[in-house]
């Protein structure tokens, strides 16, 4: 492990900001690890017709919640994103909601 780190001087420039921050936050607060709801509940079919499910992953303004907030895993987020966009197209979900 130490060898690989030393062997890549390029990654060293990226390391401090990302790595250190994570350590600091972990020390200061206890943050529960986020899990993907679709994986945990074993929802394979992320369907655009399922408004109830999809509306849990859009903000008040109608925006799709980012992964870093909702904790959805990458493959699921990709499918979720498509589903939300399809639902918007057929007026099941809003593109945006006025303030």
């Amino acid at each position, binding site marked *: 492990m130490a060898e690989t780190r030393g062997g890549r001087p390029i990654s060293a420039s990226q390391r401090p900001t990302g790595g250190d921050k994570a350590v600091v936050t972990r020390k200061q607060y206890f943050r529960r690890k986020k899990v993907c709801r679709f994986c945990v509940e074993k929802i394979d079919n992320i369907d655009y017709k399922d408004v109830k499910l999809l509306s849990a992953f859009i903000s008040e303004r109608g925006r799709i919640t980012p992964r870093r907030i909702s904790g959805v895993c990458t493959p699921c987020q990709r499918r979720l994103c498509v589903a939300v966009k399809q639902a918007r*197209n057929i*007026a099941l979900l809003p593109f945006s909601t006025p303030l």
Partner: protein
Amino acid sequence: MRIYEELFIVDPNASDEDIEAVANQVQAVVTDGGGTVDKVDKWGVRRLAYRVKKRDEGFYILVQFSAGPDVVKEIERRLRVHDLVLKYITVRIDEKLQWLDKRKKAREKRALKKPAPVPVGAPGPKMPGEPVEAESSGQEEQA
């Protein structure tokens, strides 16, 4: 043959017969084109998420059918021209259904595997598996 799903919104102010006629028209196009209608689901009047053609509500109809791509073209053309239809969306779902089936089978397989060999089988294969992994990783580091 592909499986499609057509979801379209009809003007809620239209009479029941007119709504029925639109649904029948879509089904007729499918059957004329050599396809089969698998499912027709009338959701009824729903609130729209945003205004469409100055309407706040719409009558949703879902038609699932299997047919060729030409049929979809014809259906979309008709719905676009139709005055009572506010919006429509066509989704090809055969690939998704296949994928879902695959996932489901994989999941069942895993579920079958997991509870059965845990008392006897699981510790057996794991024990020889671990040292092999450790050895291989060690070789990689050296290389």
